[in-house]
């Protein structure tokens, strides 16, 4: 479904992603793990079109989308949950969701999708007229996820969902991601919390200083020496 081929990404002169190839198949839940500054966020931003891929190609359902702007990727069915949530704090909860539906022309469909989000997350419904920044971190994360779901994406890119959340919310978010995946949405998660994410993922990649060091099934990653030592704290 999503295929990254020999991608190289630069920040100025510095190469932050070095010839990375990665694939997400239809229906999978794939995770990219690694330490802070390894290039995880850059990688997922490049897939959404927020960072330019200098060399290499990115394919989505066989289509070369390397040079597509972010919004065109959103239209193709790629949803994005950014690191740090980045909800629109000065907008109400409902307006945040409406922004998620920005590309939908049919008003009835917007309304249906909003109702669906409210059914799924009653908290959001209670707070629909409240400014988004007045909500707790966990609620903001739910809002960021719902905002991405409004456009009915087939592929969801999620960046550091657990960051800055209370443990109970972290667990909730991971089980929610698993549930969304079981409902048929293909998911790519970038995550520092390797322990948690490898429990829900089908496959995983370990990235270090812009290169993929290990890849394989989530199970094999959990047994891998490098992963065990550096990321699972054993």
């Amino acid at each position, binding site marked *: 479904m999503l295929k990254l081929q020999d991608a190289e990404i630069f920040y*100025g002169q510095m190469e932050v992603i070095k010839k990375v190839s990665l694939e997400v198949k239809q229906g999978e839940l794939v995770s990219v793990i690694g330490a802070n500054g390894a290039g995880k966020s850059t990688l997922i931003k490049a897939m*959404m*079109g*927020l960072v330019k891929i200098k060399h290499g190609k990115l394919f989505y359902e066989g289509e070369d989308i390397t040079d597509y*702007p*972010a*919004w065109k*990727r*959103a*239209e193709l069915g790629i949803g*994005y949950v*950014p690191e*740090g*949530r*980045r*909800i*629109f*704090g*000065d*907008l109400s909860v409902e*307006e945040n969701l*409406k*922004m*998620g539906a*920005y*590309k939908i022309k049919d008003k009835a469909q917007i309304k249906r999708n909003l109702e669906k989000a409210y059914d799924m997350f009653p908290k959001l419904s209670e707070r629909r007229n409240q400014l*988004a*920044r007045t909500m707790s971190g966990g609620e*903001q994360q739910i809002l960021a996820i719902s*905002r991405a779901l409004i*456009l009915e994406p087939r592929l969801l890119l999620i960046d550091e969902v657990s960051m800055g959340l209370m443990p109970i919310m972290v667990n909730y978010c991971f089980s929610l991601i698993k549930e969304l995946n079981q409902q048929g949405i293909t998911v790519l998660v970038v995550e520092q919390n390797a322990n948690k994410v490898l429990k829900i993922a089908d496959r995983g990649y370990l990235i270090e200083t812009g290169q993929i060091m290990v890849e394989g099934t989530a199970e094999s990653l959990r047994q891998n020496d490098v992963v065990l030592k550096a990321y699972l704290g054993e």
Partner: protein
Amino acid sequence: MLLQQIINGFMIGCVYALTAMGGTLIYGILRILDIANAAAYVVGAYLGWVIYATTGNLAVAFFLSMALTGAIGVLIQKFIYTPILNKPNIIPIVPLITSVGIFIFTGDFIRLLVGPEIKDFGVILPFSVIKLGRIVINPEWILIIIMTAILLSLLWFVLNKTKLGLAWRATAGDSEIAETMGVNIQKVMALSYIMGYGFASAAGMMIGVLYSSIYPTMGDIPSYKMLAIIVLGGLGNPIGTIAAGLVIGLSETLISAYVGSVIPRDAIAFLVLITILLVKPTGLISRKNSI
């Protein structure tokens, strides 16, 4: 008389708010201080003067002058600012200096075109002086109240009740994320320029009508007073800008009426700015970005 002074200050504040609004709308999206907004003030006044002289209809003059100045704004955005901002590693001082350049160029261009002398706007307004006891409200003030009310309601409507306005607010909050949702940033920028330059043009015309005079350097003092209002309003906050415009207008009028000319009138805006920023560094109403 206090009430009279308050009314006077309120009126001037309305004009200040309209003048600075463009700067606020543009800062909200592009994060640049656009001094050339004061050029729109001058251009608007001159266009209005020409159109009024030809058509004799003030409403037409206002409408056409705003539309034309707004269109000029979009052209400046498309052909000057966007290419500059798209250059890699651009530092914010570059667009700022560019806008100063556009402003100076415009004033000089008008001087070459129509001459440096003061032109008489020569408007006969359809309202008469209203007297309530000892309070006098001039016909020009009535025009200013009506125009400000119409324009600010229009702004409120666009920002809060239209899809493009929602996109404007989202983009002002986080342009990168707004873009991932399908917002065409160029369109949002164009909205900022059309409305911003249009408002500045209306403000220039109002001042032209009020003092019955326009001249090429009429934008000089508004250009820096506008900066004080934009900063005081919390940088990029439309409601803050209205509040800041009124605060500056009122304090100017009241201080020069009651303290006298110890402090030059045009310095008061900055005294107020500095005093308020010392107490509240984020401005009157700060924007709270969610990161």
